[in-house]
């Protein structure tokens, strides 16, 4: 059972961390602090404007990529741990 619990705690921490990046890129850089960031040039564009219309979307795609990759690893690790201690295996997942 505690394999499942530890798995879920790690999953929550990962999700929280990625959502912080989501909020910083989408709301922080692109809306709340856009005026300040617009003073910085990114190529020939103001950085805040670029974040709002381009950069944030790239960050979003990257976040989902990382989530899928890291969660997949965590799944494999959890399967190994669960196999290691069969008696306390997580609840079997009957669909439905």
């Amino acid at each position, binding site marked *: 059972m505690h394999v499942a619990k530890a798995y879920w705690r790690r999953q929550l921490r990962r999700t929280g961390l*990625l959502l912080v990046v989501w909020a910083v890129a989408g709301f922080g850089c*692109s*809306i709340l602090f856009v005026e300040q960031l617009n003073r910085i040039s990114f*190529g020939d564009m103001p950085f805040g404007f670029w974040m709002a*219309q381009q950069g*944030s979307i790239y960050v979003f*795609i990257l976040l*989902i990529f990382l*989530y899928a990759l890291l969660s997949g690893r965590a799944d494999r690790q959890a399967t190994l741990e669960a196999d290691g201690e069969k008696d306390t295996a997580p609840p079997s*997942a009957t669909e439905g």
Partner: protein
Amino acid sequence: MSIQAWTWVTVGITFAAYLYIGYRSRVKSTKGFYVAGQGVPAIANGAATAADWMSAASFISMAGLISFMGFDGAVYLMGWTGGYVLLALLLAPFLRKFGQYTVPDFVGVRYYSQTARVVAAIAAIFVSFTYVAGQMAGVGVAFGRFLEIPFELGVAIGMVVVAFFAVLGGMKGITYTQVAQYCVLIFAYTVPAIAIALLLTGNPVPQLAMEEILPKLNAIQHDLGLSSYSNPFTGLSKLNVFAITLCLMAGTAGLPHVIVRFYTVKNVKAARWSAFWALLFIGILYTTAPAVAMFAKYHILQQFAELGPAIAEQSWMQNWAATGLVTIPEGGIQTADQLLEAINRDIIVLATPEIARLPAVVVALVAAGGLAAALSTASGLLLVISSALAHDIYGSVINPQASEKRRLFVGRAMIFLAVVVAGVLGVYPLGFVAEVVAFAFGLAAASFFPVIVLGIFWKRANKQGAIAGMSIGLVFTFVMIALMRAQNVIPGMDEPVLDHFLGVGAQGVGVIGMLLNFAVTIGVSLCTPDSPISVRDLVERVRYPNE
């Protein structure tokens, strides 16, 4: 060959392909009909989700809106992509693990209540119908402008095509035609954008060419007495930009026709990866759109700076004036403001290839792309309506003993009925429905999003909390929108009753409905008995992906 002849060719070929794919993916079981047998590969589901998601509004209207809003257009760009992060991290993998057919299924089982299931089914039907009417109308407009056939006939052709693959193939037919429709629409969107980027800057990548155009665009806006294109918060306050963006994000994550796509893949891992593919595919269009918006604005303003009032005699202005999407004022076009006033936002994507004098075959592509975007979204929405009626209301509440054969028949019948109703709503739009379409996101954010997230992440959430939260979120948002848009919604009113709520306008007010929903669900759950042990076990299972 003329533009019209090329349009017949591109539309004819793509429609024939959709019909062929639909025929090849016909199904014989309810599992095939509702969730495509849960065997769709992650990358195919990603493409199908992208086509499902990007509607006539994304394809036709969005770049035009951004073009006129400048920086503030970012609300659509971020709102409609950032929602996928919420969807991928908070909803999709868990709902796939839960593994039934519909969103009301999850709400009904997680909150152990047929009432909750019915409330969710009604909300799903309502949100989807308001959304689908606009798609059918989009089909009619595209046919009318490019093929010069009557609007009603255009809608009818769209209905026949959708009915064919949706009735025969259900979700499976819809999924594989959506994959084809994604290819058509992304090709049709990017080819003209690349051509124009090359023409203007010599750089074929629109996302990079932006950089060269922005300083020129800002300069020309300045010369014509307009504020700088990249200046933030010119039309919307910072608070509203924030609220609308968040509202569109949560709404995206809560829209049933998007969520249900994640039920069609093999397992949890595939659900996570298909969210990635979906946003990658969507991102191609969404990072191109702001470039298209800039190119179009630059082109139009530059023509005006050169020609002055004579711009009204340009052939593209004349062509679009004939359709009513350009209205040249009595005294002609004297100022840049009058010019922008005269042009309907919707023509930016449709007319840019023409304005930039691209070859006829490229212009023809745009019509096929717009039709693909509208049809793919319409079919996804129609499946949600049919499954809510046939699976959640008929199969679970009215006649739970129904045989598999009977269920499949009812499913097919409902999707056929939904196609007909959607077509009629497209031809005879109710003013009320048209107004609510834009707010479907607010309603989805205020109803589904909080109860699903809490259902997964907070075991203590119970039946009483969810029903109270969903109802209050929905009613609050609906009433607020009705008051703020009273002139279009309530008969006999000619001005809004309320301008804003705590500074948040109608488009973003769903965020407040969402916060209310969260607060009420949590509050009521804590004051009422815990959910049964079987439900808490279910939540445990949903969180842990291994079989």
